[in-house]
């Protein structure tokens, strides 16, 4: 409790000197090497705010619970180090790049957590990579960020600095496909995506896997978020008599609208499955999928590109509730895990006694991307491969719980062995 107060004090102090991140906050006495900053870079407007807030809280919770210090350094997350890449209500790559150039310019910042969206990450990784700043995303699922030639181009010949604690779309899509095909036993599906990076990526991965399993895709439509008339689309979809609907996208790009239109077109009883983009809180969360869908969500399922149940979940949920007064939703645990990884890395980097902040930043990057180190995170023991992808390839499946009006954890699929 005392430590938590200290954290708040430090944050307030930092806010007062809004721009001077380097100002050493009142330290707990245990650390004497100085103060370092964990920066956060997430969109904080509109419906994406609902996804980002739990992550920010999760990160802060992890730092507080770790005693706000590691490797002899005090860790702070001043308000000025929490960046918002949203513009006009939605994430924006250019804004993300602008933010990152500020993040890397701050000498005290030794790690950054974010962003939420893969398209923003594409603009940010070249910057953090050039600066050798460790970056951990709690939510980026696009395979191109870490794998193969596209990722190598983002890094621009520099050693890897980017890790993520969630698994990729090429796992999330197939997980949904496996669930629909095997568990739900539905062998024909209608696919609709929002024509955006994430939505189309995950829908394509889904389609590939579903076809490989022997399933039938009645149709694969693309409806940009500006689409007006979803009822027409769903009427056309209904003519193919699909057993299930798979939506690639997020709530803000049409998740609930498609569900409502599907109900009008006579597809109300057909399972509606979507990725983590629609797993954005319970029915009381403003702007969330369940809030907009109301009772029509009865047959909805969502996947989450991360672990849904883990050993310390009950305690984590209780701690989170106590600290923030709301339930931990979405990627809160992933934010917590990112912070844990960096706290661990800072501990090991601090042990090497780096000469200055520049050396420390590099030491943290090296420590964080160390492929031989096993991290004991809240989500369990994980390692990162040379690309920065997590060894934990678990996708959780959630279904709609009509009594709690919230997502209910169903099962999780582990792809690590596959």
């Amino acid at each position, binding site marked *: 409790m005392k430590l938590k107060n200290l954290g708040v004090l430090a944050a307030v102090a930092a806010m007062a000197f809004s721009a001077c991140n380097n100002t050493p906050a009142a330290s707990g006495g245990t650390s004497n090497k100085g103060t370092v900053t964990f920066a956060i870079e997430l969109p904080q407007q509109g419906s994406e705010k609902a996804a980002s807030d739990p992550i920010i809280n999760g990160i802060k919770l992890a730092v507080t619970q770790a005693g706000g210090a590691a490797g002899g350094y005090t860790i702070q997350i001043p308000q000025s180090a929490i960046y918002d890449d949203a513009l006009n209500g939605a994430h924006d790559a250019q804004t993300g790049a602008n933010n990152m150039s500020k993040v890397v310019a701050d000498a005290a910042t030794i790690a950054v957590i974010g962003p939420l969206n893969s398209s923003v990450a594409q603009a940010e990784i070249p910057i953090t990579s050039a600066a050798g700043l460790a970056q951990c995303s709690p939510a980026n699922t696009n395979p191109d960020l870490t794998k193969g030639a596209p990722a190598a181009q983002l890094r621009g010949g520099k050693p890897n600095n980017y890790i993520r604690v969630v698994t990729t779309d090429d796992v999330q899509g197939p997980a949904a496909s496996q669930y629909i095909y095997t568990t739900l036993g539905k062998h024909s599906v209608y696919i609709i995506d929002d024509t955006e990076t994430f939505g189309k990526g995950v829908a394509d991965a889904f389609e590939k896997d579903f076809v490989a399993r022997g399933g039938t895709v009645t149709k694969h439509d693309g409806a940009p978020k500006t689409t007006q008339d979803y009822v027409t689309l769903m009427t056309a979809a209904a003519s193919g008599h699909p057993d299930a609907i798979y939506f690639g996208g997020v709530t803000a790009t049409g998740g609930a609208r498609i569900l409502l239109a599907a109900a009008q077109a006579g597809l109300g009883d057909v399972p509606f499955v979507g990725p983590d983009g629609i797993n954005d809180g319970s029915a009381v969360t*403003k702007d969330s999928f369940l809030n907009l869908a*109301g009772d029509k969500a009865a047959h909805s399922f969502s996947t989450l590109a991360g672990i849904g149940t883990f050993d310390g979940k009950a305690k984590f949920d209780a701690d989170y509730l106590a600290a923030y007064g709301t339930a931990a939703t979405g990627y809160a645990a992933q934010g917590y895990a990112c912070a844990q990884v960096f706290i661990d890395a800072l501990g090991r980097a601090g042990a090497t006694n780096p000469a200055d902040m520049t050396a420390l930043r590099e030491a943290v990057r090296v420590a964080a991307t160390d492929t031989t180190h096993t991290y004991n995170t809240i989500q369990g023991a994980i390692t990162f491969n040379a690309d920065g992808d997590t060894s934990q390839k678990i996708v959780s499946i959630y279904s709609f719980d009509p009594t709690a009006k919230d997502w209910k954890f169903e099962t999780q699929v582990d792809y690590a062995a596959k």
Partner: protein
Amino acid sequence: MTTVAVAGRRSNPASRFLRIAFFAVVAIVIYQLVLFIALQQTWLVGTSALPADQAFPVAVQQTINALSIGAIYALIALGYTMVYGIIELINFAHGDVFMVGAFLSMFVTLGIFGQTVGVSVTDIPFLILLLASALIIVMPLTGLLNVTIERIFYRPFRGGSRLAPLITAVGVSFILQNLALVFVGSGDRGAPQVFPLEWQIKFGEAKISVLSIFIFALAVSLMVALNLFVNKTRLGRAMRATAQDQQAASLMGVDLNQTIALTFLLGGALAGAAGVVWGLRFGYVRQDLGFNAGLKSFTSAVLGGIGNINGAALGGFFIGFTENLASALGFSRWSEFLVFLILTFVLIFRPTGILGQQLGDRA
């Protein structure tokens, strides 16, 4: 600016209405046939091609869908076309007035009637009361909003250059959109679909939702009412006179300010009605709704011949059908592209629109 009235168009409104209705039915039947045939073509729609017995009900349902969205575009397009007809201004903010109408309707059903999102009303008298109140509250409010916009932002430019009010209109559109962003946020908001979606009429295999019929009927009756107003009343005559020649109308004792305000009032009220049915139909509202809907409605107005009330209605349905065709055949990714392509071609090859501009004779 002045167009000589075509003799036939000045004929008895009843027979004119019958003629329009006849053409509308013919157009609808043709569209259904086109869709019916297209849905069976493997070269066009690939594996989702349907056998004839299945294609027919789908074609019927899609036509009804097209009429619904077309009615919404048409209602918005009327506001564009009337305003353009009278002061030659593209009121960019008009689409956002529609968006405000959709939000107001949501507040009325949620706030005043205490409805919840996702729950429909099956008690018919209450449903009628609810819908009527929504229209009676929202339409005057959006009308007044439109009048206020004209009074504050457009009137100072009257008689001056056309560029300045045009730029101002773009600014007003952004202001409305972003006020909504600030007050209600950027995400979707659930609008209560109080009209029961289960109410359907079986037409062979096809199921036609009563809601679609309601939307279409409401739009058509509003259009007829507008037509009567413009053609049969003193104020309507003043509007036509002003559109034909502002100065001359003014000299003949027409109160310009009042007439222009009236035009904005009517346009705004129709956009408000479109906002009410939007929520019923699609169950959500968002702050940037007005941008695309406005753009498409404006396209409708141009398509029909800007300044021409019947043209705007026709254009609205045309755009609705175009979009519907693209979506129904699986080209939804390209539907907006198609709409703008049509706009481009119309503007280049027939800038006066399908029915021709009738700035003076706008009925």
